[in-house]
Each structure stands twice: as structure tokens, then as C-alpha cells.
């Protein structure tokens, strides 16, 4: 009897790995998979490299100017635009989201004699806009279709500053008094735990992680379900379950797809990191590497937990067309945690959800980087997810075994539990 058991166990791993190997080979030849991966790679590369290129590009704006006040304003606007270039060194892409203050710009101008038709100049000369007016209070910014936003902002700021100065002079304020009004001293900002220079906000990391998890579970979950139902539909499953226990078949599918999911995420994140290094943001790389440990662990646990359910969803269907209805529950189990992780919800709910097995894989890592948690918290959540994963693997194996040979129509989960053959 013991020989029988050890013989069975010693065959388990080779058989499971053969099944996993087939899953991987099928995936690697799947055009849709290759397309998504390449597309994601391009997207990530673009997302890391483009903002850097964009922030480094200072727009050149050429303006036609007519009238004394207009010349005065454009001169000041050009000075403001040039000053911005010195003070704002290119930052990380995330800083784009929180940019405040004035934009940097290279403003050059041509003076137009009074009486010259400005419309004709706008049409014929290489200028983006024309600023007209002899009085500060009656300036006109004319353009053919659109005024460049940098120009608009800088001209508005310059005009405001000049008008304020004029008003100050009329009311007899001194230069100091005027400065106190227009450039009041801002309170000193002191950060007790400052974020490192050139890093991205933790919310952003959590968002990226949630998106990757969501995408992986959805695509690979669906691919597990498909792989299961294809074997049912083509009847080959009977040959397979004659050769090995159903649990091994299930394990091989989950293993193969987990490897592919983690591999795909690793390639995509790797591309992002390489892009970041190339774009000169090694600080960001360090930050990501430091906070990725829990992400990876929860990713794995969460993925395995859900993928068994996807296999069950596949085995309840008898044809590929029925998958969308049998996997509806799984889709909800993926989408709800995703929104829970992405939407702003209050602290208490977040805390609770970070322990609920289905939302924990997204919310616990997010809380780790965002709020900071006690050392035991992620461990408890991980154990809860792991326990649920084990439970679902067992449940999945039973439902799978009970339904996988039933090839003539949709099954209800209860029928699968009873083992309708």
C-alpha cells in the first residue's frame, strides 16, 4: 500500500509539470497573447519615456506685437517664461500631474507697425498669435484657431502684474509695499518624512499594481477557463483523466498560467524599469524595487486563489460560447476588488477590505506603501488569502472533477458538487 502511494506521489510532479508545460507552449503560440504583451510593453515604455521627453521640451512661441502696452506685456511674459525654465528642472512623470505655477516657454516676438493688418500677418507669418493694444486694460490676444496655453497663461500673468504695479504706483505704494501685496511671503513648508526627490506617489504605484493584477487575473483566468472547456468540448479530457487524477490536471493548468502571468507582469514591469533607468530615473527604480516584495507575494496568492475558480467556471460550461455566463461570478470577483482598490474610500473600510481575501491582494499592498501598517498586518492578510486559496483549490478540484466529464450542456455548481457524470 505504501508503495502505491509513493508511486503516485512521485508521478504527480512530473505529470503536473508536463500539463503546465503544454499550457505555456499553447500560450506562447497564441497570437492574442503575444499581441497584448507587445502592446503592454509599448504602452509601458511610452508611459515612462514620453512624459520625460515632454517635460524636457520647452515650447517656442512666436508672437506678433502691436501697440506699446502689448510690447511691455510680451517682454515681461518672455522673462517669466525664461525664469520658469531655470527653476523647474525636469521631474519625474508623476510631477506632471501636480504641476503648478507658470509654464516654461521661449517667447520671441516681432513688432508690427500700427495700421498693418494683423489678420494678414497671422495668416502669412510664422506666428502663433498676435497681442494688440496700447492700454493694459484693453489688450487683445488674437490667434487663428487656438492660443498656445503657455502663451495665454504667461501673458495673463504679465498683464496682471503690470496692472497691479500701475495701480500700486497710482496709490503711492513703495516698491516694498507693492512686493508685499503681489509676492507675499508663503509659509515655509517642512516635510517630516519627505518623499525622495524624483519618486512617484504611492497612490500611483498602487494604481499600477491594481491594474496589472486586474489585467492578469482577467486574461489568464479566462485562458484557464478556456483551456478547460476546450478539453471538454474536444472530449480529449476523458483521455487525460484516465491518465491522471483530475487534481493534477487542475494543478498543471493553474501552475502553467501562473508562470505565464507572473512572467508577463515581470516583462512589462521590467520594461518599465529599464525605461525609467534609460530616462534617468534610477531613484524611481529603487523605490519600486523596495516596495514590490509584498506586491509580488499578494499577486501570487491572489492569482492562485482566483485561478482555481476560473477553472471551475470553465468546467461548468460545455462549449466555449457558454463561458461568459459560467464565469460571470469570477469577473465580478475581479472587478469589485479592482474598483475597491482604485476608488477613494474611507480609511476604516480600506482597513477592513485589506483583510477580506478577495480584496486583500490589492488593498493590503496599497495600504503598506500608502498608510504604513504594523508588521503583523500583511502577514495576517497573506495567511487569510492563503487559507482561502487552499479552500478554493479543494473546492475547485471537487467541482472540476464532478463536472469535467459532463459534456452535454451547462451545469450548475450544485450539480458539479454532487458529481453528475
Amino acid at each position: 500500500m505504501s508503495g502505491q502511494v509513493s508511486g503516485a506521489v512521485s508521478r504527480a510532479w512530473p505529470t503536473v509539470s508536463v500539463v503546465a508545460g503544454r499550457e505555456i507552449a499553447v500560450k506562447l503560440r497564441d497570437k492574442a497573447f503575444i499581441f497584448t504583451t507587445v502592446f503592454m510593453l509599448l504602452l509601458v515604455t511610452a508611459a515612462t519615456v514620453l512624459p520625460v521627453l515632454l517635460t524636457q521640451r520647452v515650447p517656442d512661441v512666436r508672437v506678433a506685437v502691436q501697440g506699446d502696452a502689448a510690447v511691455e506685456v510680451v517682454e515681461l511674459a518672455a522673462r517669466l517664461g525664461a525664469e520658469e525654465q531655470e527653476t523647474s528642472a525636469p521631474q519625474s512623470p508623476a510631477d506632471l500631474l501636480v504641476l503648478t505655477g507658470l509654464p516654461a516657454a521661449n517667447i520671441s516676438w516681432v513688432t508690427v507697425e500700427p495700421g498693418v493688418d494683423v489678420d494678414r500677418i497671422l495668416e502669412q507669418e510664422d506666428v502663433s498669435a498676435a497681442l494688440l493694444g496700447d492700454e493694459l486694460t484693453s489688450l487683445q490676444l488674437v490667434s487663428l484657431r487656438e492660443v498656445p496655453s503657455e502663451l495665454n497663461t504667461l501673458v495673463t500673468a504679465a498683464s496682471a502684474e503690470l496692472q497691479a504695479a500701475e495701480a500700486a504706483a497710482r496709490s503711492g505704494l513703495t516698491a516694498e509695499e507693492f512686493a508685499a501685496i503681489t509676492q507675499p511671503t508663503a509659509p515655509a513648508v517642512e516635510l517630516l518624512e519627505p518623499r525622495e526627490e524624483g519618486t512617484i506617489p504611492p497612490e500611483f504605484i498602487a494604481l499600477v499594481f491594481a491594474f496589472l493584477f486586474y489585467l492578469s487575473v482577467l486574461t489568464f483566468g479566462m485562458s484557464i477557463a478556456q483551456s478547460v472547456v476546450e478539453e471538454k468540448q474536444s472530449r480529449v479530457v476523458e483521455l487525460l483523466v484516465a491518465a491522471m487524477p483530475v487534481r493534477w490536471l487542475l494543478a498543471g493548468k493553474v501552475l502553467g498560467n501562473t508562470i505565464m502571468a507572473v512572467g508577463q507582469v515581470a516583462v512589462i514591469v521590467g520594461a518599465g524599469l529599464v525605461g525609467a533607468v534609460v530616462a534617468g530615473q534610477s531613484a524611481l527604480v529603487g523605490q519600486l524595487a523596495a516596495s514590490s516584495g509584498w506586491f509580488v507575494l499578494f499577486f501570487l496568492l491572489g492569482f492562485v486563489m482566483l485561478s482555481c475558480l476560473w477553472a471551475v467556471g470553465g468546467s461548468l460550461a460545455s462549449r466555449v460560447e457558454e463561458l461568459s455566463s459560467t464565469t460571470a461570478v469570477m469577473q465580478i470577483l475581479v472587478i469589485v476588488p479592482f474598483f475597491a482598490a482604485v476608488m477613494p474610500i474611507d480609511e476604516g473600510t480600506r482597513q477592513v477590505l485589506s483583510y477580506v481575501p478577495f480584496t486583500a491582494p490589492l488593498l493590503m499592498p496599497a495600504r503598506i506603501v500608502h498608510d504604513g501598517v504594523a508588521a503583523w498586518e500583511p502577514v495576517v492578510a497573506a495567511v487569510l488569502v492563503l487559507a482561502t486559496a487552499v479552500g478554493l483549490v479543494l473546492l475547485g478540484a471537487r467541482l472540476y472533477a464532478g463536472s469535467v466529464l459532463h459534456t452535454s450542456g451547462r451545469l450548475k455548481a450544485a450539480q458539479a458538487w454532487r458529481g453528475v457524470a
Partner: protein
Amino acid sequence: MDRELRLVGISRSFGDHVALDDVSFTVRPGRTTGFVGANGAGKTTAMRIILGVLAPDAGRVELGGEPLTLPVRARFGYMPEERGLYPKMKVADQLIYLGRVHGLDLATARRNTEALLAELGLADRADDVLHTLSLGNQQRVQVAAALVHDPILLVLDEPFSGLDPIAVDAMGALLRERAAAGVPVLFSSHQLELVERVCDDVVIIDHGRVVAAGEAQELRAARAGRRYRVRVARDGGAPLDAAALAAAVPGATVVDGGNGAAVVDLGTDGDEQALVAAALAQGALRELTPVVPTLAEIFREVVR
């Protein structure tokens, strides 16, 4: 090797429906065993239980007197009634895969696949995707799938269905060849003439019960009973009077009286000599042979 497969008291129900009721039979090594029964008699259920795809409610399956274990079962070759392989996978790839699932290492799986495809005349289709093959060739790949891991037992559910006469002969030869190599071969069919031609042993199952089992020839001989075919040449070419013939022999009944010959059942106590005398009384005796029933006849009789 060369161990016989034995089913002992196997029962299995699906809900209220009893599919198998105390089924026992033996599949001997070196012989082909035909598994015969009407649709729904329980053939597929019994085969699935042998393969471990289904669990019996009661009873056991043994090979060489020992209960089946996973590693032993993995070495069984199986052709399910509902044929199926991966339609989008290359022929050689799926045979190698199935071989490995059955426990072969990669090199052996490759070698066996190559040899089998050559044997089945499919060597040039090895790298073609399965669904591009003709149905006949797909069927051959299905056979290869049952053989790729050098099985120690072959179980084939309706292996002849859908085959043309030439393919039927090839399949029959293949089964005999495997049996001759010492592998117990069990196959089901409801084409009884085929079973008669191919198999050494027969198991007849009806409504979940084994109603007859044993060597095909013995079964037929045992059921032959006291049935004779009589042909007589009468003066003036008049046809044989079958009714008069039977009437002259106590206990005899006419089974078939047409075509100038009569088939007469002597019953348990009828006398052959009386039959001979009655035949001679009608004219010159040309033929008097014992009639051995075909499997189809036995089947109709026991299943009735």
C-alpha cells in the same frame, strides 16, 4: 506483464438508474475480448470504471490479482467512445504530450510517436495540425494516442465505428497484433459480425448485467444445441416437406423451412437417427449438418 484484468462484482448507479449490477468478467492476456451489448447496456460505464474515470459504487477491478493503482492505471491504453484530441495541436506534439502524461520521458515519447506514426502511415503528417487531417486519419491518430505509451492493457470503446471496410480490417489486425504481444485487449462493439471475426472471447452485457461470457467458439458451440440443417433431393424435384420431417421426429420443431432445406431444432430429447430416417423417407439425403449459431443469434437470444 501478461496479467489478466478482472472485474469483480462491479455495481454503479446514476441516480435511480442502475447502469451496472454486480458485473464480473475477465479479460485475458494474449486474447482479444469483445464486449457486446445494446445501446445503454452499460459498456461505456464499465470501461470508464476500468480506466478509473468513474468510480464504482461497489466491487473492484484487479490486474494480475492486485487492485489497480494510479501508476498501473496510467499505463492503460484507452480509446473513449467520444473521440477527442486537441484540434489545434500538431499531430506529433499531442502524441508526445499524451505519452508524457502517461509517464513516459520526453525521449521515449518522441521515439514511440515517430514509430507509431510511421506504422500508421502518418509520418508525413506529423507536423500538421490535427483538424486539417481527414476524419479517417484523425481516427488513426486517436488509435496512436491509445498506443503511444506501450500500454499494458488496451480498452477501446467502439473502435470500429465510423471506419470503412479497409480500415476495419486494419483495426482488427492491430488489435490481434497487440493481443499477440501479450496485452489484454477489451473492445466494445455492436457490430456483431465484426466481433465474431476479431475476438477470441466475448462478454455479453444486457441492462447492466453480464448474460454470457467466455470463449467465442465455446459459447457458440454450447448454444449450438441440437439444431440441424437438412437438405433432401426428392423425386420429381419437389421441395422438402419440413413440417412432415419435424412431425416424424418426436419433440422436433422447424426453425426455418425455406429454400429447399430445413433447419430443425431437435429439442432436448429428439433423436438424430429419427431425423435421418425421416429425411431418407422423403428422398436422397444430400446434407445434414449441425447448425452453430452466430454471435448475433446468440446475442438476440440472450438479450431478448
